[in-house]
């Protein structure tokens, strides 16, 4: 595949992610931080995010399965997930977290459980998207091209 073809493919794939709210401007910022000195910056941060989130989601699942639920702890976990997802630009995950926190405050177990499900789903979606996106980027770079910058105005 030609570089510009790849680039086009990349853009076609990525733009909708932004338009649909999977990713937001923060992700663009991360991309801008990447440079020749740190060519894998985005990939590294994203994988850190994956690791961290999976750990948090596991903790959350575990906590919500307990007989007596510690909402404070859950809130702390969700808060952290909110922070990291917002730093990465995973907008939908972040929004889920916000709703989740509200339910935590209300100590509404059922709502929390369903929120957790939602967060997990959103996380899986965005994870897939990001993995594909990064793969596309790496292909372009490997082929000698440069990653096209997205032009959006948020």
């Amino acid at each position: 595949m030609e570089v510009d073809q790849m680039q086009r493919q990349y853009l076609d794939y990525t733009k909708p992610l932004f338009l649909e709210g999977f990713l937001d401007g923060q992700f663009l910022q991360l991309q801008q931080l990447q440079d020749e000195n740190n060519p894998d910056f985005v990939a590294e941060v994203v994988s850190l995010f994956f690791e961290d989130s999976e750990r948090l989601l596991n903790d959350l699942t575990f906590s919500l399965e307990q007989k007596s639920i510690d909402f404070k702890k859950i809130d702390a976990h969700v808060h952290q997930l909110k922070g990291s997802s917002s730093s990465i630009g995973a907008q939908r995950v972040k929004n889920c977290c916000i709703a989740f926190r509200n339910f935590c405050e209300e100590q509404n177990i059922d709502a929390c459980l369903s929120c957790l499900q939602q967060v997990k789903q959103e996380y899986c979606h965005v994870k897939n998207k990001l993995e594909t996106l990064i793969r596309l980027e790496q292909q372009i770079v490997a082929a000698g091209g440069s990653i096209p910058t997205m032009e959006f105005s948020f």
Partner: protein
Amino acid sequence: MNLSNGKGSMSTVTTTAVMKSGDAVSDQFPAGLRVLVVDDDPTCLMILEKMLRTCLYEVTKCNRAESALSLLRENKNGFDIVISDVHMPDMNGFKLLEHIGLEMDLPVIMMSADECKSVVMKGVTHGACDYLIKPVRIEALKNIWQHVVRKKKNEWKDAEQSGSAEEGDRQPKASDEADYSSSANEGSWRNSKKRRDEEEEAEDRDDTSTLKKPRVVWSVELHQQFVAAVDQLGIDKAVPKKILELMNVPGLTRENVASHLQKYRLYLRRLSGVSQHQNNLNNSFLGSQEATFGTISSINGIDLQTLAVTGQLPAQSLATLQAAGLGRSTAKTGVPMPLMDQRNLFSFENPRVRFGEGQQQHLSSSKPMNLLLGIPTNMEPKQLANLHQSTQSIAGLNMRVNASATQGNPLMMQMPQSQPRGQMLSEKTGPRVPRLPSSLGQPTVSNGISNGFLGRNGIAGNNRGTAYNPVPPNSSLLSFPMNQSSEVSVNNSLPLGSSPGISSITTKGSFQEEVTSGIKASGGFPSYDIFNELHHQKSHDWEITNPGLTYGASHHANPLQGNIDVSPSVLVHQGFSSTQQTGQTRDATLIGKAMFSLGEGSEQDNLQNAVQHLHPLLVDNSIRVKAERIPDASSQTNLFPDHYVQEDLMSALLKQQEGMGPAESEFEFDAYSLDNIPV
């Protein structure tokens, strides 16, 4: 925001001319700024590190607060600024902030995904020089150097104040150099730092110490000594030279003291703005105090006896008060005062609470007398609660009042602080100001009520004195005045609303700005978080130093209080600006009203409303407050939730005020000139 040249936001230009002094003006400033980032979230940490590196800063990252602290300790001068997350597993970000401020006096920026105003406010009041909301954008980071420069500039200024003429000459240069805020990026900040050092050096030579002094770390002990000295001198008489002499610490220079003094004042001012905390406190207090409120309301004249009867006032204090000839009977006019004073007490206490767990201990251990007056401002809500219980005296009442008054606290807090030790009189009972002893008893009561408007002056001082005073509680009666002053000082530290502090309080829309501006104003003195630790020992000392500060703020609130006759002379003595005093003499009812308005606010959103209410009161020297209050007053009775005992108090106050008359129409806060705070 056009952070890419953050400096752009700051206006002016600085000039390359200024920078010259031999240092090559480098275009790289603020490149090389040494930043320490602390965050338990690895994703954020990595992103931040990358962003900061992109800004050409030197970054060190840490994912635990403890390791960050040890890094800082090993390398005292190794960092210029710290950025820390609020929520961390091993240590609360605010605690870290306090430690850093206390030990290293570095500017600290807090950040969090939590944009809740109360948390941001907490950051402000704990001394953070900025608060960033995650996700952090690189533009925000590009601008952080301003905090470093600002801090240095403030330090220079401090040195200047205490400096000699020569310093004065150098000052302009220094200021210019320090003025990075202006577009000048030239000159690395290191250059300016060097320059500052040079100037300090020169100043030192001119000054008592002859050698260039290394950066002084204000340890807890040192700070306590400082506060004791300031306390002894009285906030308005506390000049660096005298403080230095009193402290008698070898190697300490007047410039060090001057700079620390300035920070201290600002810190107190800032503290007074912590209405939020107070709100929290209030709630806790209110619950327990309800009974007392009723009593208070009847205390227009602040009968000590009444107080005593209610068990609020310790026998001792009562005796003292009476002995002092408070002449409660005359208190009629002053009635509002007492009530208000109480509020003041509380108000400042609340802020204190925030800062001082230590306070709690202090309080509980303090004798009843202390409790009355000296509700440690730093006391945390529980502490305050403890106090109340233990004191059960008027102080307790005050506390409650304060609690409810938290909103009004800023005002209240300010009052106490402004009063120098001896000045207790003026503090509490306004009219009775001269009567120190009597005011002792009264203040507590009124303080609570007056939330700071009226009582502040007197009450705050008193309360503080009791609680924090170094004077042993036993000696409370006699030393009451002393205590009071200490109290006052304490209150000062709590300055709720002094204008400078107020800005930090405003929770309103401009909150964000306020936060930063508030912080900026105070130069983000994290070091003042020492209060927590200090209050054990001398919490109130701090307050004394800022009596002026708080007082000023309180004054604003006070104008309304006509009833409080804080005798001008007394006030002056205390270092309050005379205008402040007038404020106090205003209707106490105003305060009460203000409180109510605050109270209302609390219903909805304690802090915010309170702040809002307070804010206009404090800051806006306008009748606005009045307008707000009046309606509030009328609706007071059922304004507050059950736990707000204030209602009774307030209604009592209001009634009195109505009787009082015209004061209400005089809500001008013109009396307030926070700037009057004598230095």
